[in-house]
C-alpha cells in the first residue's frame, strides 16, 4: 500500500535548482532512505514534504490528500512528523516539555479548562504524559527528563528530537541525518531505535543518512539524488551495484562512504 506519493516536484532558489522533477512513492511501514552527496537536495525534499519549503511545481499526496503547499502545522496534524539535520529543539525547555509539546495537537482543552487545571486539562495532560513516558522509556532518556535540553550533550539532544517527533504520533516520520556527528555506540543505539519505531510502532520512515553501512542495513528501499536529480531507486543491493550512484559519490569527490 502506498503511503506517500511525490509527483514531479520542482524547487528552485533563484538560480539554484534544488529539486528537478522528483517523483517517488513510499510504501506503508517501510524504511525508505534518501542518499546523495552534500547539496543534492535531500533536506530540501523533506522540507517540501512537511511544508517548510513550497515547491514551484509538482504534487505531494498523503492519505489521498494533496498536501502540496499546505502550512507545516496542518501537515503535522495530518500525520507527518520530523527531525532536523541541525538540531531544532526548544533549548530553554525541559526534555519533558519538549516531548509534551509534540503532543500539542492531541491536547484538545481550551483556555478556561487550562486556567482551572483540575478536570479536563489535567486529565488530558496525564493521558499525554503516560504516552510521553513510554517514549522516554523506549529512548532510554529517563535520567534527563527534567533537564533543560540546551544543557544536554549532542547525542542525547538528537535522541530527544527523535522522541519529540514520536510524541506527535505521526504516520510518517521524516528523519534528517539522525546519526550525524555521533560516535559508533550512539549510532548503533540510534539504528536500533529507528528499527524499534518502525517495527513496534508501525511508523513509516523516510531517512536521510550519509552512513552507508547503516543505510544498507536497515532500509527497505533507497533513492539516490544528485544535484537535485533522482539518479536511482531500488533495494539496497540494487543501489549498491548502481554505477550512476557510484559515479555520483566518486565524481563529486565526496565522502567516499559508499560501502
Amino acid at each position, binding site marked *: 500500500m502506498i503511503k506517500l506519493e511525490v509527483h514531479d516536484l520542482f524547487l528552485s532558489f533563484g538560480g539554484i535548482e534544488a529539486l528537478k522533477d522528483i517523483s517517488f512513492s513510499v510504501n506503508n511501514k517501510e524504511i525508505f532512505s534518501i542518499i546523495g552527496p552534500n547539496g543534492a537536495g535531500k533536506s530540501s525534499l523533506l522540507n517540501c514534504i512537511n511544508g517548510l519549503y513550497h515547491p514551484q511545481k509538482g504534487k505531494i499526496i498523503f492519505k489521498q490528500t494533496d498536501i502540496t503547499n499546505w502550512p*507545516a502545522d496542518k501537515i503535522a496534524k495530518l500525520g507527518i512528523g520530523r527531525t532536523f539535520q541541525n538540531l531544532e529543539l526548544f533549548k530553554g525547555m525541559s526534555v519533558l516539555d519538549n516531548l*509534551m509539546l509534540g503532543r500539542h495537537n492531541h491536547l484538545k482543552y481550551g483556555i478556561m479548562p487550562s486556567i482551572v487545571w483540575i478536570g479536563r486539562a489535567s486529565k488530558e495532560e496525564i493521558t499525554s504524559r*503516560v504516552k510521553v513516558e513510554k517514549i522516554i522509556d523506549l529512548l532510554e532518556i529517563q535520567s534527563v527528563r527534567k533537564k533543560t535540553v540546551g544543557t544536554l550533550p549532542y547525542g542525547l539532544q538528537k535522541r530527544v528530537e527523535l522522541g519529540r517527533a514520536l510524541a*506527535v504520533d505521526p504516520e510518517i516520520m521524516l528523519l534528517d541525518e539522525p546519526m550525524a556527528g555521533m560516535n559508533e555506540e550512539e549510532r548503533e543505539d540510534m539504528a536500533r531505535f529507528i528499527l524499534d519505531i518502525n517495527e513496534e510502532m508501525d511508523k513509516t520512515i523516510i531517512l536521510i543518512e550519509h552512513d552507508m553501512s547503516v543505510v544498507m542495513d536497515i532500509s527497505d528501499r533507497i533513492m539516490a539524488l544528485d544535484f537535485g536529480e533522482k539518479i536511482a531507486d531500488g533495494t539496497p543491493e540494487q543501489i549498491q551495484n548502481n554505477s550512476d550512484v557510484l559515479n555520483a559519490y566518486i565524481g563529486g569527490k565526496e565522502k567516499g562512504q559508499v560501502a
Partner: protein
Amino acid sequence: MAIKCGIFKTSYRSDMAMWQTKNSRFWMALFFIGLIVFPFFVSKYFLYMANIIAIGVIAAVGLNILTGFAGQISLGHGAFIGVGAYFAGYLTSQFNINFIPAFIAGGLVTAVVGMFFGLPSLRLKGFYLAIATMAAQFILAFVFIHLRSVTGGSQGMIVSPPEIAGFSFDSDFRYYFLSIGTAIVMTLAAKNLIRGKFGRAFMAIRDNYIAAKTMGVNIFLYKIIAFGISSFYAGIAGALWAHYIQIITPEHFTFSVSIEYLAIIIIGGLGSLLGTVFGTIFIMVLPEFLRFINGIVSLHYPMLVNMFDAIREGSFGLAIIGFLIFEPDGLAARWKTIKNYWKLWPYSY
C-alpha cells in the same frame, strides 16, 4: 493492569502539582496568611503601596506571558492598561453597571484591542514588532485624549469605588482585599496556563518557531492568543487601577508606563511569574526609596527637588542596564541562588 495504570496516574498528578514539596506548600500557606494579616497592622501608606503593587503584578504577569513566555515584545502595554481603565470606568460611571461584569468586560475589550494590535506579529519580529506595538501605544494615547465624549479628554473621567451588595471598597484597607485577591487569582491562573498546552506552545514559539510549526503549532493563532491573554490582564489591571484612584487621565497610560512594565519583567526575570512579583515590588518601591533619599539630600542641595522626575527615570534606566549586564535572568535567578544556598545550609560555602 488497570490498578497499575491508576498508580501511574496519581504519581504523574503529584509530579505535575504546582507546589511539589511539603516544604513549599508550607511556605506558600504562610505567605497567604501573611497577606491576609498584613493590612490589619500597617499604615495607610503601606496599604496604598500594597494596592499599587498588586495591580502592577496583574499587568506585569500579562506582559510576561507575552514577552517572557511567548517571546513577543510589546511597547503598548501602558495603553492597553488604559483601555481597560476607560472601558470599565465608562460602564460603571455612565451605566451604573456592577463592577464585576464591568471589569470583566474591560478585560475582554482590551483583549480584543490587544489581539488587533498583535496582528503585525504575523510578519514582524523583534525590533520591528517593538515599533509596531509602539504605534499602538501612540494611537491609543491619541484616542484617550481626543475621544472626549467617552474619556473626558485631559480633564479625565471620574469613577466611584466598586460596590457590591451595599459594601463599598472605598478605603485603602478595603480595596486591599479586592486588589490582592484578584492578583492572587490571576497569578495562579497564569501559572496553570503556563504549565499546560498554551504555555508550552508559547515557549516553543519563543525558542524555535520553525520546530513549533513542524510539531503542529499554529504559530499565528498562538501569537494572537498570547496578545489576547496579555491584554486581558492589562485590561483587568486598568479597571482595578481606575476604580482605586477614581480619576483617570491619559497621563497614567503613557509610553513611559509601557517602558516601566518592560523594566519590571526584565528586572524580575523574563519567563518567571515569581520574578514578575519581585520585579513589580522593585520598580514600585524604587521611586519611594529615591524620594526618601532625595528628601534627605535636598536639604543640602535644594535644586535636586526639581530634578526628581529625571532622577527617577534615570534610575529606571540604570536598573535595567544593570540587570541586563549583571543578572540577565533577573531577580528570579537571584532568588534561586539564595534558595539553593539555604537548602544546603550550613554545608554551603
